[in-house]
C-alpha cells in the first residue's frame, strides 16, 4: 500500500500482478509480477516468465494500480483503507492464508459485488476474517489469455512435455536434500503439514 520513497524517478513500465491457473477447477493463484507496457505484452511476458513449466491452463494479469491489498495490521493502523473509492461492480477476492508456501502468494477465492475497492476489501475481511492478507481488484481490470484450443496449444501445452522438478529437488547448496534425509538430518516438519 505504501510506495517506497525513491530518490530517482521510476522509469520502469507498469507492474502487473500475474495469476496462474494450474488446471481447470483450480483457483487462479498470484505467482509474481511482470513489468510490461500494455495488457497483451503483460500476458505474453507472464507466459514466458511463469509458464515455461510446469503446466498451466490460464493466465490473468492485473495492473498494480488496480489492486488493493491489506493485512490485518495495516487495517488496524489505517482503517480508512476500507473507504478507498473507485468504480462499483464485481471484484475478485484473493487471500493469503499461510506463511508456509513459496511460489504462490495469494489464491483467488471468489467475487463480491461492491461499491468500490474499499468496500470489496471490507467484504473480503468479513467473509475471511482469518486471512493474513486480503487482495481485491475489479473484474474490469483483468486481462486474460484466450481459452480457444489454439491458445491452449501454443501457450500452455508445450510446458507439459518439459522436465519439471519441484524446488526441493535441488535441495540446499552443497548437499542434496535426499542425502540429508537418508542421514536423518532433515529438520522435522510442522504438524499441520500433513504427509510426512
Amino acid at each position: 500500500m505504501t510506495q517506497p520513497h525513491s530518490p530517482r524517478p521510476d522509469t520502469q513500465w507498469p507492474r502487473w500482478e500475474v495469476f496462474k491457473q494450474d488446471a481447470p477447477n483450480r483457483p487462479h493463484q498470484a505467482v509474481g509480477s511482470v513489468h510490461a507496457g500494455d495488457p497483451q505484452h503483460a500476458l505474453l511476458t507472464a507466459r514466458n516468465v511463469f509458464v515455461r513449466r510446469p503446466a498451466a491452463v490460464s493466465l490473468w494479469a492485473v495492473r498494480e494500480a488496480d489492486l488493493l491489498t491489506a493485512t490485518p495490521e495495516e487495517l488496524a493502523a489505517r482503517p480508512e483503507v476500507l473507504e478507498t473509492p473507485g468504480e462499483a461492480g464485481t471484484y475478485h477476492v484473493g487471500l493469503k492464508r499461510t506463511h508456509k508456501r513459496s511460489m504462490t502468494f495469494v489464491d483467488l477465492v471468489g467475487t463480491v459485488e461492491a461499491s468500490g475497492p474499499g468496500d470489496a476489501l471490507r467484504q473480503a475481511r468479513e467473509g475471511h476474517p482469518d486471512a493474513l492478507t486480503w487482495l481485491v481488484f475489479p473484474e474490469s481490470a483483468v486481462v486474460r489469455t484466450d481459452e480457444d484450443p489454439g491458445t491452449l496449444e501454443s501457450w500452455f501445452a508445450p510446458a507439459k512435455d518439459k522436465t519439471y522438478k519441484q524446488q526441493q529437488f535441488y535441495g540446499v547448496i552443497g548437499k542434496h536434500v535426499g542425502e540429508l534425509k537418508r542421514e536423518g538430518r532433515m529438520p522435522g516438519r510442522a504438524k499441520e503439514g500433513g504427509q510426512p
Partner: protein
Amino acid sequence: MTVSSQQPETSRQQDLAPEVRAALSAKLTALADDELILAHRDSEWTGHAPILEEDIALANIAQDELGHASLYLELRRELDGSDPDRLAFFRDADEFTNVRLAELPKGDWAFTMVRQFLFDTYEALWLEAARTSAYTPLAEVAAKALREEKFHLQHTALWVERLALGTEESRRRTQAALDELWPYAAQLFQPLPGEEGLVAAHLVPDLGQLRGVWEGFVRSHLAGKCGLSVPEALPAAGPGRDTHTEHLAPLLAEMQSVARAVPNAEVW
C-alpha cells in the same frame, strides 16, 4: 498449404531409398543448423536484454529453437547414425548449412526482433505444412515444434509492432533493421540441391509455395499493421547454404569452445 496426404505414409527410415535418405539427411541438417545458429545469437542477449522479463523470454525462445535443432538432428541420427553433439560442436564454418540471415550479429533489440519475426513466420509456415509429411517421424516433430513456434511468432510480432509504432528512435531502428535483413530473407526459400525429390515424394513442404504465403503475411504485418516501408520485391537468394558471411566462424569459435576443449567428455 499442406503436403498432400494422398501419398502412403513412411514411418520407417529403412523404407527410404538411399538417395532419398541422403537428401533428407541434408535437409534435416540445414533445418537444424538454422535453429542452432539462431538460438546462439538469441542466447547472446542473456543478461543483456532491455528488461529482465524480456531477458527471460528470449532465453526461453533460444532454448526452444535449440530444442528444435535437437529434434531434427535426432531424426538425422535415425537415418545415418550421426551423433548430434558431434555435428553441433565439431563441424567448421564451411560445413554448416544455416542461412546467412541466422548468423548475422545480434545487433540492437530491433534487429533481433525483426530477424526473429521474419524467421518465426517462415518456420511456423514450414512446420504447419510439414505436419502432413509422408515421413511420419518428421510429421510428429513438426506438430510438436509448431506449438512453440506459434507462440514465438506472437511474441516477436508484438515486439516489432510496438517498436515500429513506438518512439521516433525505435521506429528508425526497426526500419533500419528491416532494410538490412530483407535482402537475406529469400535464402529461407532456396531449396537444397536434391530437395525437389523430397518434395515430389511428399516428405517436405514445397518452399516455393510457402514463399508466397510468407510474403503475404510478412507484408501485411510490417507494412499494414506496423507502417514500415517494405521493399517491393525480395532480392535473389544469392549463393547456397555452403556460403557464409565472416560472422559465422567467430560465433562457432565461441559456441564450440567448451566441447572442443574437452573432446572426450562423456557427459555434459
